[in-house]
């Protein structure tokens, strides 16, 4: 009986093992790249909203973040403003604009506007806005330059790695409390020096309470 495999089959078999390995690794790397891609993380893409609300326009008119996000200083959630807050001004200004029709309809019928969340953390992450605000982390640090976004998008990928960048070294990002809501704040040249001082002053962490402990975010 003739041989089924020629001697060259040995080489092919060896090579195919090698290629299979390369292919598997490449495949896994590819999957990881897709997972990290801006497309999957939904960064830099504005989400569709019932009303094309422009943060840029409203912030540049001098309206403070807290005018609408009323609970950001004392609560875990920053609060999505109620229709009532929109109507504080829009009962008079742009009151016939077709763009604002959903707002007026919500005001008249009492039905909530259904805004789509831009920053949605997984449910196994505990996040509290107020502690960050009160310990000198600026809005811009996580949300990016919202004052330049006509339609707001997610600026950061919200990876755990990204959270830890700051939790490992808060002195790199912390700012004086009175600058937290300042959109134009530029970190000073002596940021590290100032940061270390502020971390101490605001009691950001101590030996029993480190920001990198698991329970800080997973509780």
């Amino acid at each position: 009986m003739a041989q089924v495999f020629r001697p060259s089959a040995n080489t092919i078999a060896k090579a195919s093992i090698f290629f299979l390995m390369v292919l598997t690794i490449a495949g896994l790397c590819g999957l990881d790249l897709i997972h990290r891609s801006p497309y999957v993380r939904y960064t830099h893409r504005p989400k569709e909203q019932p009303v094309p609300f422009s943060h840029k326009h409203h912030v540049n008119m001098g309206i403070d973040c807290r005018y609408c996000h009323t609970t950001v200083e004392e609560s875990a959630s920053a609060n999505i403003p109620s229709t009532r807050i929109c109507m504080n001004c829009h009962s008079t200004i742009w009151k016939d604009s077709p763009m604002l029709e959903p707002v007026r309809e919500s005001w008249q019928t009492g039905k909530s506007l259904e805004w789509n969340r831009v920053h949605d953390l997984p449910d196994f992450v505990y996040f509290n806005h107020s502690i960050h605000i009160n310990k000198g982390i600026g809005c811009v640090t996580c949300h990016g330059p919202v004052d330049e976004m006509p339609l707001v998008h997610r600026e950061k990928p919200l990876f755990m790695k990204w959270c830890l960048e700051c939790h490992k070294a808060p002195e790199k990002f912390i700012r004086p409390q009175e600058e937290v809501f300042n959109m134009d704040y530029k970190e000073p040249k002596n940021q590290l020096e100032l940061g270390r001082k502020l971390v101490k002053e605001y009691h950001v962490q101590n030996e029993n309470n480190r920001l990198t402990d698991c329970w800080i975010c997973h509780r």
Partner: protein
Amino acid sequence: MICLVSGSLLLFGNGCELRKRMYDQPKYEPLEQSDFFGDARSARALVEGTVPRGHLNEDMHLYEGKINGAFADTVPFPITKEVLKRGQNRYNIYCAVCHDRAGYGNGMIVQRGFKRPSSYHIDRLRKEKPGYLYDVINRGFGSMPSYSHQLNPEDRWAVVAYIRALQLSQSATLEDVPKQEREKLLTEKQ
């Protein structure tokens, strides 16, 4: 081989499903949409007439700005520097958009077409009692809506105190400046 592939696929699929369920657990985040309630709100409004424990707001002075039915002529707590600072901070967020930072009523929203409010520096408003100013914040006045949902009672009073400070600041004379500061002010002017 087939077993191995289908096994790993099953594990992968199962893993994805478990991961999804951990990402979105059967609990509501604040203001999350609900499939259960007819109006789709997970944040439920209180049944009308409900008084949450500790929220029986009996103190008419603190909560309504009134004493025996008339506007109070005092602030219900001592005005310290902290209270004024808090008032300034809240004023600049919630009031300055229309009333402007000095209280003349020429804020950005007014410049964009909102009805111009009275300046705080007219005679009538200088003479009004603090309780009246509180009442305007609490219940609104004319085109101005109530700010009771954006300012809590203590903050409303802090804003009242700050408005009083603004009123003083705009009609102050050199005699109102402490002696040791006076010279500094005069040299700065030159």
